[in-house]
């Protein structure tokens, strides 16, 4: 067994185990923690696929940002007694099945190896990727418009957050 397959299996186990903990744990904090493990595993996959820029971005944005905010909220929230009601499970089930179908279709339509990256079609890594990504964001032909829209959306969210915080708490609370 090559090191690459071994790494793939370890990461796959971590990702799936994290997902299972997220779903089934009775503690919400454990769930957030499992989510963190799962997202870290996905970052590991990106490294395995030769895309370290994406991997580090994943860690910065999701593991270091989103999950920390989840934990922040979860720690100050009492547990939800209704978390396992039939209605919620049914709604979640529909989405889960739909996602699974899309995923399986992608897996079976895939060419090349089931783990790691084909040496023939591997992406460039490191500095070259950063330059390409940066240029693509600033290129009118490529992603300039989506980039600007995302910026405006974030700005709106920021202003909204400040507005809500001000209204609820008042000045100098």
């Amino acid at each position, binding site marked *: 067994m090559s090191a690459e397959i071994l790494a793939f299996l370890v990461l796959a186990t971590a990702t799936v185990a994290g997902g299972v903990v997220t779903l089934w744990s009775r*503690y919400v*904090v*454990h769930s957030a*923690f499992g989510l*963190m493990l799962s997202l870290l595993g996905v970052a590991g996959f990106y490294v395995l696929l030769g895309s*370290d*820029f994406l991997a*580090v*971005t994943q*860690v*910065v944005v999701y*593991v*270091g*940002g989103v999950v*920390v905010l989840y*934990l*922040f909220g979860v*720690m*100050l929230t009492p547990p939800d007694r209704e978390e396992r009601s039939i209605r919620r499970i049914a709604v979640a089930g529909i989405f889960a099945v739909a996602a699974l179908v899309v995923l399986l279709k992608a897996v079976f339509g895939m060419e090349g190896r089931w783990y790691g990256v084909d040496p023939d079609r591997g992406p460039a*890594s*490191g*500095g070259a990727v*950063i330059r390409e990504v940066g240029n693509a964001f600033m290129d009118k032909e490529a992603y300039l418009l989506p980039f600007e829209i995302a910026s405006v959306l974030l700005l709106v969210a920021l202003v909204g957050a400040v507005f809500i915080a001000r209204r609820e708490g008042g000045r100098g609370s």
Partner: protein
Amino acid sequence: MTTAALIATLVKIAVFFGITISLAAVSTLFERKISAWIQQRYGPNRVGPWGVLQPLADGLKFIFKEEVAPAGANRLLFRLAPAMAAAPAFMTVAVVPFTFPLILDGTRIPMAIADIDIGVLFFMAMGSLAVYGIMLGGWASNNKYSLLGGLRSSAQMISYELAMMVSVITVLTLAGSMNLTRIFEAQIPLWNIAVFPVGTIAFGIFLIAAFAETNRHPFDLAECETELVGGFHTEYSSMKFALFFLGEYSAMVMMSGLITTFFLGGPSLFGLVNGIEDPWIKVLAGLGVFLAKVCFFLFLFIWVRWTIPRFRWDQLMHLGWKLLLPLSLANLLLAGTLVATGVL
């Protein structure tokens, strides 16, 4: 990976990690010695000559102490938290270039464990993971003081991370690369701290944010003995307690190393070391210069702790959000303009 490259990597891991851990241990001794000098005392002087064996004695004591977990604590997370607090600081060691690249027979061996092109991003990622240990430790202890300490600390680290990252981006703009070795090599003619005004301002912001990120005085509201007993580590004992501190001191060493790399030209010293012909002597001299700079910043961390009183909570937030963040953004804008117009 060839066998030679593998051996080189293993040697680098052993040496650089060893240096970091040793420096962290020695700084605990110097923390107490320097605080004693500042307060006109002797400091630890019983264990070994001049107290030099004190860190070793502390370590042994921590190992043999009983482990206590409070009733109602979340066992799993309570045990995991100290490791998660220490791990990010240890992992940052991987990207810090400790000295000049070694050039042997035309092959260039970079003197960072992993000389990756996204070194700066890796440092940012590890910095954002550092919150977890303290936050979970505070929560899992099932103690109101711990929880408050953990929450304060995570809010503080998230707030100051922003200003720190923006000032790092200023450095990237000046260097034109995310590779830490290239960043210090770009400064061999002129250190970033001397690039007035953008480099100097970015240095100031990074330094202040580094104090906040490592939970050091005057930003150590996470511990804040007068209000929170011990903050997030109130309930911790034995080696778990020690791991939090090992993590804190390693983070200090790493922050000092990164300040040196980003703003003080890493191992370079006014072109003196850079001009050395012999590759091995150049590498060793570079390492010496780098460590001297790191030790200066470690001293600064300790000096500030025993000189300046603690900030109040709202003052801390005010400084982070209303002063440092806008200042760093304006600085970045200025740096971008200067670089784009070719002034720098």
